[in-house]
């Protein structure tokens, strides 16, 4: 029984995009609805349902699944959506190069008895492989509309919109949908009648790169090269040159003096601003300590520090205006500190990281890295797949805590989330840490990397043993290596930046307001005195850095930026040894309040509380150990 649904009834139905992982569902969703969702070249990019409107159709994008008996949480989400929308039109998206596997899922979906359209996507890649597909024959065999598309090039989208109204229930002989060998046999029969794939005789550069990326020797060389490029691009260019230009050049030389002048004019009270020397250097970095200087300039500018003139004769209004003035442009001002930190320090670092990360995601390299590190991850009770959320955590730990859904067991999710919260610095913090690395010796930098990796392995190993429960098998599909598409890379970077700034700027402003309040009440000094045994005694850091840890509770990158200022800023107070201790402590801090909320949402409040209660004392403990042992080792 095949029924073509009428236009009126179809327009009332939701449309669900389903398909195997990494076949282009999200690209199709973006093209159909005009709504941007993150798209990457590895399975497990989408972990939540995205909704959008295509004409009068309500379109839902779902995480990929290989069959209807799902093993992971993200695939369970898809099955739940299929159950929830019993009247939905199913649009199955298939990779043209891997039609056989898609047809196994088609047969399972056919058993649900819903109207379907099959989209055969990535037809251009099939052409490159020398493949041919008889679309009409396939449509006859399945008795549903089949639409060939190249979603990235917008080809076939219009036809798909038309075909949505002609969706039909597939006519396939009834089989046990759990009998996978039988489903594969039938998929082979269908493929034999309408599909031809000739393997190319010569491997392309992308294919060769894909093979090298998983081989023992070349794979590690490639991984080292990727790390080196990341260090240069994010640590030296983003966190070094771009931050210098924006912080000293734009904010220090133009925006801050302008803001001070405007606020002085609007809120006058008797005071005099100090002046400071502002240096801006534009250089091409070659190593952490060397670079080719292109341009440099020195100028004297107005400082945020000011001296009050005759405060004993001030009226109440003078005091109020001084308070408002300092709240905006003082040393803890919303413009001179919060916006300067968020836009001049965090923004260039995060932009450079997300740009590079998007390129890596789209290239298909990340699953290959998972293959390389599988053995190491096994020692932590995890498997290679866990490296995907951990690398994503280098971008943003909050997003990464949600991506742990691609892992199969709760034990793996808990251990990965713990390691994310403990030892994976987010992009803002990573950039700051890489910039701080330039202040310490090479041996100390190696010590820091080794220590953080060691902490990851030991804590992961212990957590896996204490948690109990089973791990999962490492079975991972490797997507083809592709050349990244620049429009997608830029769109993805902008989308992430928007998300990040929405989260960062309000938190930075709140953190600065808290610091301002504490400073005005004189509590900052008092709290520094309370924490002196911990900060000065145990960690061996100057009293001024206590504030960094205080606001580090809110966001650890904010604390890290504060420390960076103390380490490399104009009034540097930290010695190389103290920089190392500060780096270790702040790296092991909880990422931010938002991550804690996300862990609570994903794993429950007990796990979130347990992780937080472990992370904070452990960070201080390790910092102290490094201070005492590092001092003894002479680092």
């Amino acid at each position: 029984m095949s029924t073509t649904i009428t236009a009126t009834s179809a327009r009332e139905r939701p449309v669900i995009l389903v398909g195997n992982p990494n076949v282009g569902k999200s690209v199709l969703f973006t093209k159909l609805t005009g709504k941007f969702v993150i798209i990457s070249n590895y399975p497990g990019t989408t972990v939540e349902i995205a909704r959008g409107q295509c004409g009068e159709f309500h379109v839902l994008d779902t995480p990929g699944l290989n069959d209807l008996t799902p093993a992971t949480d993200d695939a369970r989400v898809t099955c739940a959506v299929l159950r929830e929308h019993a009247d939905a039109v199913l649009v199955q998206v298939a990779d043209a190069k891997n039609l056989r596997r898609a047809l196994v899922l088609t047969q399972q979906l056919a058993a649900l008895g819903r109207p379907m359209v099959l989209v055969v996507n990535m037809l251009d890649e099939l052409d490159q492989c020398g493949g041919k597909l008889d679309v009409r024959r396939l449509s006859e065999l399945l008795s549903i509309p089949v639409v060939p598309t190249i979603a990235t090039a917008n080809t076939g989208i219009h036809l798909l919109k038309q075909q949505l109204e002609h969706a039909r229930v597939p006519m396939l002989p009834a089989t046990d949908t759990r009998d996978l060998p039988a489903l594969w046999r039938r998929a082979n029969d269908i493929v034999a009648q309408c599909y031809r794939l000739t393997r190319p005789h010569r491997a392309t550069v992308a294919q060769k790169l894909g093979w090298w990326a998983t081989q023992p020797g070349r794979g590690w060389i490639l991984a080292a090269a990727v790390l080196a490029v990341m260090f240069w691009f994010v640590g030296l260019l983003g966190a070094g040159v771009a931050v210098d230009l924006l912080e000293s050049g734009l904010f220090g030389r133009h925006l801050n003096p302008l803001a001070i002048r405007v606020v002085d004019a609007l809120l006058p009270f008797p005071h005099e601003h100090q002046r400071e020397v502002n240096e801006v250097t534009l250089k091409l970095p070659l190593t952490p300590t060397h670079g080719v200087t292109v341009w440099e300039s020195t100028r004297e500018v107005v400082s945020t520090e000011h001296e009050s003139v005759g405060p004993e004769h001030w009226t109440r209004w003078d005091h109020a205006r001084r308070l408002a003035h300092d709240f905006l442009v003082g040393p803890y001002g919303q413009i001179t500190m919060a916006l300067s930190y968020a836009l001049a320090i965090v923004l260039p670092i995060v932009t450079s990281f997300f740009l590079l990360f998007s390129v890596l995601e789209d290239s298909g390299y990340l699953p290959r890295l998972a293959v390389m590190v599988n053995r190491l991850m096994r020692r932590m009770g995890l498997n290679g797949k866990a490296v995907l959320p951990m690398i994503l955590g280098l971008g943003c730990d909050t997003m990464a805590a949600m991506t742990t859904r691609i892992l199969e067991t709760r034990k793996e999710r808990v251990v990965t989330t713990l390691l994310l919260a403990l030892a994976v610095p987010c992009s803002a913090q990573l950039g700051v840490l890489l910039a701080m690395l330039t202040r310490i010796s090479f041996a100390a930098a190696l010590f820091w990397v080794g220590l953080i990796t060691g902490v990851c392995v030991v804590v992961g190993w212990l957590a896996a043993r204490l948690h109990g429960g089973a791990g999962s098998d490492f079975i991972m599909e490797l997507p083809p290596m592709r050349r990244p598409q620049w429009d997608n890379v830029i769109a993805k970077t902008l989308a992430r930046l928007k998300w990040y700034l929405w989260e960062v700027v309000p938190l930075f402003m709140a953190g600065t307001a808290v610091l301002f309040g504490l400073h005005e009440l004189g509590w900052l000094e008092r709290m520094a005195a309370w924490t002196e045994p911990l900060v000065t005694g145990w960690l061996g850091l100057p009293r001024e850095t206590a504030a960094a840890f205080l606001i580090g509770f809110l966001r650890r990158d904010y604390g890290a930026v504060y420390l960076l200022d103390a380490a490399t800023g104009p009034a540097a107070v930290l010695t190389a040894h103290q920089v190392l201790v500060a780096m270790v402590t702040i790296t092991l801090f909880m990422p931010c309040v938002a991550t804690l909320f996300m862990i609570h949402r994903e794993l429950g409040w007990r796990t979130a509380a347990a992780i937080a209660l472990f992370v904070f004392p452990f960070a201080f403990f390790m910092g102290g150990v490094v201070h005492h042992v590092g001092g003894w080792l002479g680092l």
Partner: protein
Amino acid sequence: MKRWLECPNCGLGFDRADSPCQRGCPLGRWCDLACCPACGHEFAAPPRWWQWWRRVRRHSPVGQPTGAVCHLGDLQEGETTELVCVNTANEHRRHSLAVYGLVPGCELTLQQKRPAYVIRIGETELALEHAIATELLVRRRSAI
């Protein structure tokens, strides 16, 4: 030392150690029963002396019999083979592999063994860890 058996039901040649009933059985090597990893047929394994006598009389080959199965790890990188069975009692694992097309009878190419196994089944490239790869019993191309 490998002890080659031949299933009287499907004719599959396999090592005694690959018999699924060997795992976790308290009788272990003292049991004379064997179970075919491909069809599950249980049969009495011929005694050692009888196998030795057949070899002496040249009624059976000295080494691995033609058409015998081997582990994926026994293959050379780049070799193409046919999957005979996934020799595991773990149903979930069997299912996880089947969704990628790793079902008995499928053709697969071993691309690399280290640091993890990478195989190609049709158009899918799949990475597996060592423990899973050793459970894949395959038949060499020359034996197909």
